[in-house]
């Protein structure tokens, strides 16, 4: 057993099992020097919706900080549900979920907003506000968490620059192409520097070229340390990038490979 694995056991897994805090700075340092740190852990998680549908069944899973994960599976396999549980939009019917130093089952309702500020999301349908400009749409995410004007003025242009929309900040979503709209929603998702980015079929409405443009951005963001979980039906992207692939079928994990492909 190596030294690093011992450390991980001490500060990672064990402390999450007990739902105890551990020092963020320490983990950031360990992450920098290449130690694997568990960021998301599902322990025997099942989700049964009120209508009796079993969306997830007995999921056991660990996701390390900095990973890029493809979530594949047919419609209705439970991909969206899986992401909703990470953002605590839904609570597990059984089992436990740990995100960073939080135990979602035990989290108090009033802790949820602050918790969610660590997680960004993008969706297939962008979910932009049509009456706000590009700049305002991105600034919105900072405004509602009561960031100062200075912070907004500094961070929004920065992130718009990153997604390549610097010169379009005064336009409204209806004046943009699908790819550009998705990049606005990506800018909004990452503007408050989340630890985790959830992307639910983000390329679903984009043509192949635009989709690759978005993938490049996601890879770049991932390189900067953000853990990304992306649900997708885009076979080309999954097969080419060779990242960890988790396949769901009727709410169960049927495959989990470090360098996977879309289908076996």
């Amino acid at each position, binding site marked *: 057993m190596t030294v690093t694995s011992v450390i991980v056991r001490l500060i990672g897994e064990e402390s999450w099992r007990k739902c105890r805090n551990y020092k963020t700075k320490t983990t950031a340092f360990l992450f920098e020097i290449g130690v694997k740190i568990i960021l998301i852990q599902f322990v025997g998680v099942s989700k049964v919706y009120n209508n009796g549908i079993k969306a997830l069944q007995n999921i056991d899973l660990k996701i390390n900080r900095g990973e890029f994960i493809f979530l594949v599976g047919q419609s209705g396999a439970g991909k969206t549900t899986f992401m909703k549980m990470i953002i605590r939009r839904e609570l597990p019917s059984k089992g436990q979920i740990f995100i960073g130093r939080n135990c979602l089952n035990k989290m108090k309702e009033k802790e949820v907003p602050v918790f969610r*500020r660590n997680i960004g*999301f993008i969706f297939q349908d962008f979910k932009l*506000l049509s009456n706000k400009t590009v700049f305002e749409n991105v600034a*919105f995410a900072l405004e*509602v968490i*009561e960031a*100062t004007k200075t912070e907004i003025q500094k961070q929004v242009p920065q992130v718009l620059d990153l997604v390549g929309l610097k010169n379009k900040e005064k336009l409204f979503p209806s004046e943009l192409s699908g790819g550009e709209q998705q990049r606005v929603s990506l800018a909004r998702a990452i503007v408050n520097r989340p630890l985790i980015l959830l992307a639910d079929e983000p390329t679903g409405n984009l043509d192949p070229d635009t989709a690759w443009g978005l993938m490049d951005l996601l890879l770049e963001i991932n390189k900067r340390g953000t853990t990304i979980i992306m649900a997708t039906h885009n076979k080309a992207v999954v097969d080419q990038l060779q990242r960890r692939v988790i396949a769901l079928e009727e709410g169960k994990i049927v495959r989990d490979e470090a360098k996977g492909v879309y289908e076996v």
Partner: protein
Amino acid sequence: MKLKTFWYFTKEASLGLIRNGIMSFTAVFTITLSLVILGCFYIVMNNFAYFADLAKEVLEIRVYLKEEADPITLQTEILKFSGVKDVKFVSKLDGAKWLEKNLGIKEIFVTEDNPLPDMINIKLAEDAKVKNLVRSINTLEGIEEVEYGKTFIEAMLVIVRIVWIVGISLLALIGLVVLYIIANTIKLTVIARRKEIEIMKLVGATDWFIRWPFLLEGIFLGLVSSVVTAVILSKFYVFIGQYIKQIAPFIPLVNAGELINQLVMIVIASGIIFGIIGSVFSIKKFLRV
């Protein structure tokens, strides 16, 4: 709350009101109408109650005593009953003197064989139940007769009670109507912005941050309506007051200034409270994201 945040809320609230301009206007109009009706009833209720009080002030129960009765004991007994504010003993001698003074009859009764009975005058308290009181007094030893402005007091009390009951039911009814109007108006803005609310929740806005603009909207609707109502009612009451003074100066009215102050406070406070409750109701469902 930061100043910037406060401005944000105000801006959002006004946007909501303007976007639903016609609906906001209709809401203010309808709420004002309801509050005016409520206010009128409040004024009538108060005047009736005032009138009844005055009537009680003036009217008293007179208890005539038997020859052998002991006035001191009886006075203390009567004072013990609820609804009795004060008692005053009027001896047969006082009675004779009163007659003498008022009727100009000289020295007929102010002698040993004065035929007048001793009497106890009872002043009624505000919550007096006259019938019960008379019954209780009649059970005491040494009472010859109990006399009171029976029908008048009773009629007055019945009217006051009816006005109260109607008023309270109306209050409840109109309260519900106003709540419904406010909740519905706000609901429109909430529905128009449910997408915004969903995104706000997902990027980590607190529930209160999301709630405030809608609360302000509701408060604004309630406040504007109640201020308009207050102006209408006070003008109206002063006007009616003067009119009544001219045609029927003997009818006592509650002092306009006092009543209007009360009314304005009640109306405005209820407007604000209705605004808050109404908007809280209408956004509750949409916060579960």
